[in-house]
């Protein structure tokens, strides 16, 4: 299994990216890792280490946040993202991992590696912690404005991800909405519901109906289908509430000697809970709908996040999810008059 890594993407590149890549290469010697970036900087970050399963491909440019996302890969043909994705396209690797600009990575992946034929839009599908364990949130920001067909495709893509990559049997798919009844929501939700319901009746997905954000967090479904706009608001709310609650609990335990003692007693439990909310634990978000595995690690990724993003990339590449999407593309078409 060959994993290509953008060594120059993200706030902590190349140092933390290289560190994470080296950790993955050491712990999984069967992997072959290609680091793409300014070779001198990448080798310096390797600090003299030269494991046999790590190679470096030189790319002299870096796509910055300020670059136009849709055109960046054309302007910067020798950027780490463009060179890395071209390697993936050419079959020189099985998956690509980057912590670089989300918009530029998505555009470049769409335009260079291409979407699976018939997929209208690629989507981002982070795995979020819920009371039931975990759920796939698709989309979380790649597509702010969606059509019925996009949401229907996201439902299938998310369902395949939950079953093939997360190992959830017959994943429950919910449509994120402001109420559970089919009559709730805006035009997009009202028109999408019957199409998903029909797909559920055909046994193609396990559609459980509309789901409110609070029920989703309680573990009400395994796949949360959303347009990128509302999905992103949900994701950021979870992050914000998690951080706020963490801070409040910490303050509570530091109030007096008694509460400090109580804090000590529950420290390991709190640590485990905090770990559940740690985005570095998973590493990144797959771009579903692209014809080869592309993983976006978050911009602030440290070495641990990159190491885990590599393992996530391996999992996605081994899962057969792309073949499953290709085999089922005919089912994802929304017929005229269906919505």
């Amino acid at each position, binding site marked *: 299994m060959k994993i290509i890594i953008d060594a120059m993407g993200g706030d902590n590149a190349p140092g933390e990216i290289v560190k994470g890549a080296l950790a993955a290469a050491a712990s999984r010697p069967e992997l072959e890792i290609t680091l793409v970036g300014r070779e001198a900087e990448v080798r310096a970050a390797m600090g003299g280490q030269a494991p046999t399963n790590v190679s470096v491909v030189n790319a002299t440019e870096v796509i910055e946040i300020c670059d136009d996302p*849709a*055109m960046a890969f*054309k*302007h910067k043909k020798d950027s780490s993202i463009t060179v890395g994705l071209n390697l993936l396209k050419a079959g020189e690797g099985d998956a690509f991992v980057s912590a670089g600009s989300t918009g530029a990575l*998505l*555009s470049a992946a*769409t*335009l260079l590696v291409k979407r699976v034929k018939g997929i*209208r839009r690629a989507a981002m599908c982070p795995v979020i912690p819920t009371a039931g364990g975990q759920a796939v949130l698709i989309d979380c920001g790649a597509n702010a404005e969606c*059509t019925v*067909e996009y949401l229907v495709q996201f439902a299938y893509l998310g369902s395949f991800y939950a079953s093939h990559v997360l190992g959830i049997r017959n994943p429950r798919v919910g449509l994120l909405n402001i109420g559970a009844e089919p009559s709730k929501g805006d035009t997009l939700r009202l028109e999408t519901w019957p199409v998903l319901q029909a797909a559920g009746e055909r046994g193609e997905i396990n559609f459980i109906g509309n789901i409110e954000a609070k029920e989703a967090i309680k573990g009400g479904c395994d796949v949360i289908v959303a347009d990128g706009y509302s999905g992103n608001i949900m994701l950021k709310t979870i992050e914000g509430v998690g951080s706020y609650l963490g801070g409040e609990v910490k303050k509570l335990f530091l109030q007096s000697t008694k509460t400090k003692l109580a804090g000590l007693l529950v420290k390991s439990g709190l640590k485990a809970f905090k770990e559940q909310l740690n985005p570095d634990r998973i590493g990144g978000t797959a771009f579903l709908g692209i014809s080869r595995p592309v993983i976006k690690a978050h911009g602030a990724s440290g070495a641990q996040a990159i190491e885990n993003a590599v393992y996530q990339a391996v999992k996605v590449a081994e899962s057969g999810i792309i073949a499953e999407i290709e085999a089922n593309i005919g089912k994802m078409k929304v017929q005229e008059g269906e919505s």
Partner: protein
Amino acid sequence: MNTQDVLAKMQELIGEQFAVDAEEITMETSFEEDLGADSVDLVELVMAMEEEFDIGEVEEDEVSELKTVGDCVNYLVNKMK
């Protein structure tokens, strides 16, 4: 290639990319207003045009001028003269 030939090829490319019937696409069809295209869609279409018509690279300022199918057809006919 004359205008009709280019239009026919463009109808095929656009029909496939935007999942619409080729017959619905006319010279007046607007990418943004009629097909809901965003900037990535346009770059994707331009890349398909570059490949299909073997016209080399379309410059960024030229891409921004391509608002309708007719703009693309006229651009291609001129480029291939």
